[in-house]
């Protein structure tokens, strides 16, 4: 895996690093790294794999270093390219950067896998990278130039994205948890409920959004009170409906599986010792089901971050707005302005909920 990661990094060091264009849309010229930097990048590309031959436990050090140097060079080279250029000029990351960062990322991830007890070393790059970003070192990078000109609007769309995900997740938990509790005790009901939720999930998200436009606008036309409450065929209402339906399956499925996974002997013992039904539920079933159930909530959350990007198509806003705007005007910087934060958001949400799951699992004696 480490040698496999070295390959794109070597290619990246040699390939063009920066695309300099006189303005956002015009064609431009590709700039490579200066020879000294190419040499350094190449050394850093090989270092994780070489370290891996000697001490697997230390791979994280060169891998993290390579990743950070990649980010740092991106900032430095884009800034250097813009010197003496007009205000409209844009310096984008070219194929070299992407390949290099991909390889370094794989190496860092592999370094984390090699240390199961200290997985977190795979995340050591994050604080310095954030410092580079917030300290303005990356200010020359075209995506951030776009971001600066969008400024408050971008923050607004990010907020909208988070609101969409949070609301849909909250709604699906509110609906899915009681439904799962109700269905878990009844085999036939559970099958039916899971079947319906499964069917919804097989619909492509775009199709589901489209399907909801007609009935919701009809509903809004028929009941004026709903229209005044902001419900219509396009906008937030259908997006939220579709996203909630989407997130329902993982919440439901894991809930049913988790609740049915509580050993029958444990329930029988609880009953036989005189626990009432609510006591059995809160003291036994919930704590034993929670780690697996939370896994479903995590899947739903990650899924929703992605689906929320599509929701921009029907006017619900969110980071997807930039992706579709960028696609329409063939401005890759704009696409990245939406896509990169969305991807990071998914990774962060996944990591945070996974950590919570692991902690709960250990506390509740499942992973012992």
């Amino acid at each position, binding site marked *: 895996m480490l040698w496999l990661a070295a390959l794109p990094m070597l290619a990246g060091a040699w390939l063009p690093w920066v695309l300099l264009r006189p303005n956002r849309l015009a064609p431009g010229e590709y700039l490579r790294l200066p020879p000294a930097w190419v040499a350094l990048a190449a050394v850093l590309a090989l270092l994780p794999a070489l370290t891996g031959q000697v001490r697997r436990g230390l791979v994280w050090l060169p891998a993290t270093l390579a990743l950070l140097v990649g980010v740092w060079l991106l900032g430095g080279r884009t800034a250097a390219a813009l010197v003496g250029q007009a205000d409209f000029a844009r310096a984008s990351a070219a194929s070299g950067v992407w390949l290099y960062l991909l390889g370094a990322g794989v190496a860092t991830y592999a370094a984390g896998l090699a240390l199961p007890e200290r997985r977190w070393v795979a995340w050591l790059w994050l604080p310095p990278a954030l410092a580079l970003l917030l300290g303005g070192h990356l200010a020359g990078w075209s995506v951030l130039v776009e971001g600066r000109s969008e400024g408050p609007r971008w923050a607004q769309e990010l907020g909208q994205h988070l609101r969409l995900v949070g609301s849909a997740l909250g709604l699906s938990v509110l609906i899915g948890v009681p439904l799962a509790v109700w269905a878990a005790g009844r085999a036939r009901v559970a099958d039916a409920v899971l079947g319906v939720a499964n069917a919804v999930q097989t619909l492509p998200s775009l199709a589901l959004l489209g399907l909801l436009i007609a009935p919701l606008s009809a509903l809004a036309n028929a009941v004026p009170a709903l229209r005044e409450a902001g419900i219509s065929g396009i906008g937030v209402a259908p997006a939220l409906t579709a996203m909630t339906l989407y997130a329902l399956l993982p919440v439901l499925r894991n809930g049913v599986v988790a609740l049915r996974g509580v050993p029958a*002997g*444990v329930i029988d*013992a*609880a009953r*036989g*010792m005189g626990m009432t039904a609510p006591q059995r539920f809160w003291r*036994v079933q919930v704590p034993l089901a929670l780690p697996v159930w939370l896994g479903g909530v995590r899947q739903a959350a990650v899924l929703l971050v992605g689906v929320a990007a599509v929701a921009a198509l029907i006017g619900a806003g969110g980071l997807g707005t930039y992706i579709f705007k960028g696609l329409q005007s063939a401005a890759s910087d704009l696409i990245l302005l939406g896509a990169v934060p969305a991807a990071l958001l998914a990774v962060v949400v996944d990591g945070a909920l996974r950590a919570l799951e692991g902690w709960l699992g250990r506390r509740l004696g*499942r992973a*012992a």
Partner: protein
Amino acid sequence: MIQVEHLDKRYGDSFAVQDLNLTFPEGQLTALLGPSGCGKTTTLRMINRLIEPTGGRILLGGQDTRTLKPEALRRGIGYVIQQIGLFPHLSVAQNVATVPDLLGRDRRATAQRVDELLDLVGLDPAVYREKRPAELSGGQAQRVGVARALAADPPVLLMDEPFGALDPLARDRLQEAFRDIQRRLGKTVVMVTHDIDEALRLGDRVALMRGGRLEQFGTPDDLIHHPASDFVRDFLGEDATLRQLAGRPVSAFVRAGLPSPGAPRVQAGLNARSALSVMLREGHDTLEVLRGEELLGHVAWQDLRGKGPA
């Protein structure tokens, strides 16, 4: 004392238990024995109302169990099952404290009680108190299960195949340990089992069931020497006597006085079946029984026939 009167449990047209009349004597262990599907577990679960009878009634210490709320009834009855059913998310101590906590007993008194009980079932509290069920062997887990059932000091203990899931070695040890505990505490115990050895060794009384009805109720000796039907004789098997002997030390049969000269010597702790085997091997009708170097007396093969322990 538990009295079962005209107890019925019907599912549709078929009876799981039919017109069962039985009195489980106070302070004794009654084994509910029988082939699978004979209604023994159903009977047990009707005592603490995990299953509601369709007819008849059950009196616990003279009180009809239907006059109590099921949860209140169950908190006053110890319950041990084959799957053990410890709560995996709680420590051993928290598991044992379950019923006292449900009853709202004082926390500090309960903590002390937990330690006593762990001691009683042969687990060092300092070592096991904070362990999780996943860290225990099957035998240790069921010891905790027994401690948990005894935590609120219930007069009655229901056990559903309590040692059925353990490996033979752990089962023997736990049966032995439980017999000691029962000798000390004198609970009214109802133990469901399909294991004839277990019923004959542990039971003061045996209730043999078949097809939802009671086939015979009596002491192990009664069942072996005076079977009420061919079914009882067949179920216990031709070697029932040997099974029973296997569960008792030879010292229980000792008679004072000197044996015939040249009798082989055995130790008092040897089980009676092995003692009989020694007689057969050595071709002698009597054995000299020693404890260490001290002569306890002698035992003849006639003594091994059906006499209960002193």
